[in-house]
């Protein structure tokens, strides 16, 4: 399984902090997003409208990054701290 975390506007619009996703062999971050989009029109709309960044195991990664069982995947909009 992959633990998926959502932050900020993405978390709020999805109405979800975190969920578990089955990990299929050769799956990358954008495959995980496609999987999430299949959860319903609201999910599809939010991902279509959000510039979505990803971190795998707390390190920023491109959407092509391969995922492994047990990974922590975080999805969020561009950061705005400071």
């Amino acid at each position, binding site marked *: 399984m992959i633990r998926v975390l959502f932050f*900020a506007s993405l978390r709020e619009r999805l109405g979800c902090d975190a969920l578990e996703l089955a990990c299929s062999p050769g799956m990358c971050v954008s495959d995980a997003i496609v999987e999430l989009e299949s959860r319903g029109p609201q999910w599809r709309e939010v991902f279509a409208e959000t510039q979505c960044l990803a971190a795998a195991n707390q390190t920023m990664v491109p959407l092509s990054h391969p995922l492994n069982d047990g990974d922590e995947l*975080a999805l969020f909009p561009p950061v705005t*701290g400071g």
Partner: protein
Amino acid sequence: MNKVRVQHKAFCAAQEYQAVVDDGGANGAIVMFTGRVRADGASNPVTALELEHYPGMTEQVLERLVLEARARWQITEVRLIHRVGKIAVGEDIVLVLVSSAHRQQAFSAAEFLMDKLKTTATFWKKEHRLDGSSKWVEAKTSDDAAASRWD
């Protein structure tokens, strides 16, 4: 020494400064930056910011930024404190404090830390306004430009 903190509670910049000053005169230069919740003067003004972050990752990003600053400049002490949660207008959000033997090293390291924090540390800001409305702040291209100076 590095001191990186992400915390809910308010900090006192003057007190942090005083702690760094007590170095027996080892450092000729100290630069302190504080970023605060600004009163925006709108007719429906910002009353507070709410800061969310990615616990665990944020601290790692900040620690790495401090290491990178140390590799690039001769700096002695670094304090980097960032608040999360709801922060009222006029309160401090972030503190960067750098001591060094030389002023340009201290200035560059402090600016680098702020520029990189703004574009790479996993914080997100939401504005709360007087009428009760709230809105996530969007990333600024000027921050990307500032951060890319250091690449």
